[in-house]
């Protein structure tokens, strides 16, 4: 392992037919909470599945904790330190939340009964399901079912958490709770999560990646992402032809991204602006 990189990817590729889901990706990263942004079909889930050792790549190398998931023994070693939340968990709905998480704890080799019980209760409390833990999953709301899966991913204090859209279906209150829990985990482990929402990234990620059509467009802090759009955002009264993107804000102004004309009212950029600028510019170029 070079430096403190938990994940190292070199020219990683995965194709489905003629489309590249992940295209010659090079990246390495260490601890903390890392947000993976990108439009639908950008290859986020494919990348996360490869990192979670459940999907093999076509070419390139993956190293997690310096181990190669393609090698059976090393894959096992990675899985012992991994927590994975798939996009579609597909939980058996007749189990209670407690039974399901307990079952996953068995799969995660937590064999001692008392330890397992306490651990199951800990993760269910972390996602705020203490009161509902004995209800059948089918009787829980979509957001609660999502939290059951998240709880299962948190089992056993993994060193790497790979979370595919953990915030989907959660209300603002639960989101806040999830951020608190994940920030806490991020203190000592690596949390890699995909999301559609830039505010999610702004709220608690130390690092942002933007993936589009399998390529990495941006890698930096949330502040740097917003900084990308410095002097590129302006307000106007009428739609401007020179703007890459423009939209009407709640105040009735028109917000433009692109190269502002001279004399335009340039405003402070947000994460959204940075994200839109980067993804739009790529679209224009290709």
């Amino acid at each position: 392992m070079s430096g403190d990189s938990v994940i190292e990817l070199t020219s990683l590729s995965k194709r489905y037919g003629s489309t590249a889901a992940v295209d010659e990706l090079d990246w390495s990263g260490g601890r903390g909470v890392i947000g993976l942004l990108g439009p639908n079909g950008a290859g986020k889930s494919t990348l996360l599945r490869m990192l979670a050792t459940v999907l093999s790549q076509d070419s390139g190398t993956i190293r997690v904790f310096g181990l190669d998931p393609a090698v059976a023994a090393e894959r096992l070693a990675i899985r012992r330190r991994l927590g994975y939340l798939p996009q579609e968990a597909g939980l058996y709905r007749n189990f209670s939340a407690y039974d399901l998480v307990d079952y996953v704890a068995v799969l995660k080799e937590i064999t001692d009964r008392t330890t397992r019980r306490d651990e199951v209760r800990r993760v269910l409390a972390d996602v705020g399901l203490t009161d509902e833990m004995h209800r059948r999953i089918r009787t829980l709301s979509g957001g609660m079912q999502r939290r059951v899966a998240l709880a299962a991913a948190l089992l056993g204090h993994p060193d790497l958490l790979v979370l595919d859209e953990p915030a989907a279906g959660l209300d603002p209150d639960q989101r806040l709770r999830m951020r608190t829990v994940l920030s806490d985990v991020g203190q000592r482990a690596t949390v890699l999560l995909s999301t559609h929402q830039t505010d999610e990234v702004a709220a608690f990620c130390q690092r942002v990646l933007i993936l589009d059509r399998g390529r990495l467009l941006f890698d930096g802090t949330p502040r740097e992402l917003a900084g990308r759009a410095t002097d590129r955002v302006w307000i106007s009264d009428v739609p401007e032809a020179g703007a890459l993107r423009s939209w009407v804000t709640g105040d009735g102004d028109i917000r433009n991204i692109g190269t502002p004309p001279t004399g335009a009212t340039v405003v402070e950029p947000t994460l959204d602006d940075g994200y839109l600028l980067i993804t739009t510019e790529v679209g224009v170029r290709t």
Partner: protein
Amino acid sequence: MTSVDQWHVSNHELERYVNHTVPTFARASVEAHLLECDRCRSELNLLRSTAAPDGDDDDVWLRIADRIDVTGRPLRSSTTALRVSTSSPLLLAATLSVAVGVVIGVAIAAAVAPRASLPLFVMLAPLAPVVGAVLAFQTGIDPAGQLAMATPLASGRLPYLRALLSSGAALVAVAVASVFVPVGLDDVAVWLLPGLALTAFVVAVSTWVDPRRVALTLACGWALLVAMWSWGPRRRTISLDLSNLAVERQSVQLMLVAVTLGSAAVTFLRRHELPGWRSR
């Protein structure tokens, strides 16, 4: 509440009740009233929590919680191996329906077309355990679905334990079904050996490719073979001479045993390569 609400236990009296200093005759009415009155109960709770702040109430609740936080009955098994391999209600249901299907199918065939029942049995019998094994390798049957795939046990013995269990159940069903057809105990090798060989082979090959495809190919091949034996040009009658199958041919039997053992060895060596649990 009803008329009871008009009268309430005084705080002084409640306090005496909590401290065990209330006279007996008053105690009775305090107790009877407490059963009916929310208000006096919460007063009592307040009194008690101020009298013994943060006492061992918490401990009592924790011990209650310890006793209710247990897994449901089918999962309570003590050994991890047994618990994990029996933990899939979906697999259980699928295996059961395969088993019941085999028994009922053969029984109906024996009743409707007695002469065709034997070929049908020989055709079905080795395929039932194959179906059982293939079912066990599907990630969809795991109660935790995709979540299970990234866990340490999923890379190891879990799918194999399940395959063993479900194909074993299918074999038992076949043994039960053999009651309906003219197959004696001596003829066990006719269906058991091909069954074992086919199942072991499918499991071994599944470490390279999707077992469903392999199983389907083999099933078609086996069905064709049995059909040829039964209705092929050399035998024009609808009957199957068991002696012509594997029984008397020791070389065939040895070959089947060799395939079984060889496949088992390959499976052991490549046991971490189940494609179903790591997509390509």
